[in-house]
C-alpha cells in the first residue's frame, strides 16, 4: 500500500482514502467471506471494516503496517457480524454450498463436511484457521495481527484443527438442518 496515500488519508483526505478502500476491498472481503462463509455477511463486515479503518486511521502509528492492521480491523468486524448473526438466525440452517464450483480434488462430501464443521467453530477459531491457511501467516504473525499471546493462537488452532479433522472423518450423517429445498 502506498504510504503517501495512507498518510494523506490519516489527515482526513477522503479522496486518498477512496483509493485505499478500492485497493483493499477485495482482500478484506475475501478474508471476511472465508471467516463468515456467507456473501451477505462478508459484504456487511467489509463495509463496516472500511468505515472503522477510516475512523481509527489517525491513530495508526506506523503507516507501513497498514495492511496487517487492516486485516485486524476486518477480523474484528467479522467477530461483530458473527455475534449479530447468532442473535438473529437459528444456529442450524440449510447450507448454501455450490457443488458445481470449487477444487475438483475435494469431493462434494468433503466440502460439505468442512463447511459444516467450520460453521460450528467460534469466530475466534475460524479466524486463526483463515489467517494460517488462506493468508499463509505464521503463528507469531497471527498472534501479532490479532493482538493475542502466541499460546492463545496455538490453543485456538489446536481446537479448530481437531474439530475440522473430526468433521472430515465423520460418516456422511443426515444433515441436522432438515431437508434441502428441492
Amino acid at each position, binding site marked *: 500500500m502506498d504510504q503517501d496515500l495512507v498518510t494523506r488519508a490519516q489527515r482526513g483526505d477522503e479522496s486518498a482514502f477512496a483509493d485505499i478502500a478500492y485497493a483493499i476491498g*477485495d482482500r478484506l*472481503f475475501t478474508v471476511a467471506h472465508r471467516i463468515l462463509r456467507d456473501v451477505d455477511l462478508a459484504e456487511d463486515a467489509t463495509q463496516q471494516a472500511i468505515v472503522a479503518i477510516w*475512523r*481509527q486511521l*489517525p491513530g495508526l502509528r506506523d503507516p507501513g503496517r497498514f495492511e496487517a492492521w487492516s486485516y485486524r480491523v476486518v477480523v474484528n468486524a467479522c467477530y461483530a457480524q458473527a455475534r449479530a448473526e447468532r442473535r438473529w438466525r437459528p444456529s442450524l440452517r440449510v447450507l448454501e454450498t455450490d457443488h458445481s464450483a470449487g477444487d475438483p*480434488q475435494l469431493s462434494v462430501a468433503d466440502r460439505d463436511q468442512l463447511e459444516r464443521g467450520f460453521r460450528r467453530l467460534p469466530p475466534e477459531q475460524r479466524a486463526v484457521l483463515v489467517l494460517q491457511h488462506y493468508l499463509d501467516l505464521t503463528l507469531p504473525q497471527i498472534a501479532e495481527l490479532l493482538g493475542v499471546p502466541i499460546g492463545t493462537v496455538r490453543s485456538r488452532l489446536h481446537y479448530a484443527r481437531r474439530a475440522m479433522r473430526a468433521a*472430515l472423518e465423520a460418516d456422511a450423517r443426515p444433515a441436522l438442518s432438515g431437508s434441502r429445498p428441492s
Partner: protein
Amino acid sequence: MTQERDLDHVLDRWMDDGPTIVADRVIAAAMTDVHTTRQLGAGWAPLKELVTTMKPLTIAAGLTAAVVLVVAALQVIGGTTNVTSPGIRTPGPAEIVVTDENAPEGWTVDTTRSGRAVLTYLVRYGEVDSATGGFVDSRATDLCSEGQGCATSWVAVYRSESDADAAFSVLHAEMQVGWGLGSNPLNLDLGDDEGYAYRNNLGNAAASHAYLWRKGNLLLGVVGDMADVEDDALRPFAEEMNERSR
C-alpha cells in the same frame, strides 16, 4: 504426521474456493458512510499543532479568554434549562456535561455543541434516525489538556426511559461495530441502569477509550481522543457527570 499434512492440504485447497471480488456497491456504500463520519482525533489535530507551537503565556491568555467566552455564552443561552416530560424530571444536558467550571484540573473546554447533530458524533449519519425515537435534546463539550489529549463529554435526554433504552442499544452496537471499540465491553459500575467501558483493540493504533451509560431517560458518554487518553483520565469525567445527573 502424514494425517496432519493431509489436513493442511485439504484446508489450503478448501480456503482457496469462494468469491474473491467484492461488489463495487459495497465500497460505494462504505464511502458514503465515510463521507459523513468523523475520524477519531481528527478535529483536534489543528488545536494540538497550535498548542505545541504557541508560547505558554499566549496559551494562558487564550485559555482565559476562552473560559470567559464560554461562561458568558452559557449564561446567554440558558445553561440551566431543565427538560421535563410527563412524570420525569431530569437536569438538562447543559447541566450535566463537563464544563470549565467542573472539569478536572488542566482540562479546558474547546467547543460546545447541542441539539440533534450531537448524536452524529457517536452514531454514524446513516444510522442516526434509529437513535432519535423520543429524543429531546443533547449537548457535548470537547475538552483538551495539554499533556493528556482531548475528550468529549456527551449527554442526551429522551422523553422516556424506554426511548433512552432503545437508543442505548443502538449506541452500544455502534460503539462496537461502527467505532470498532472493544469486543468485550466492561460493565461500568457507576450506579447506572446499564453501561459499558470500551477500548479499541486494534494493534499498532493508539489506544482509544470510551464510556457509555444510561440513567433513566438519560444517556451519558465520555469519549477519549486517539492521543492516548488513558482510561484513568476519563473516569473523573464520568463520575462528575454521574454526580450532576442526580
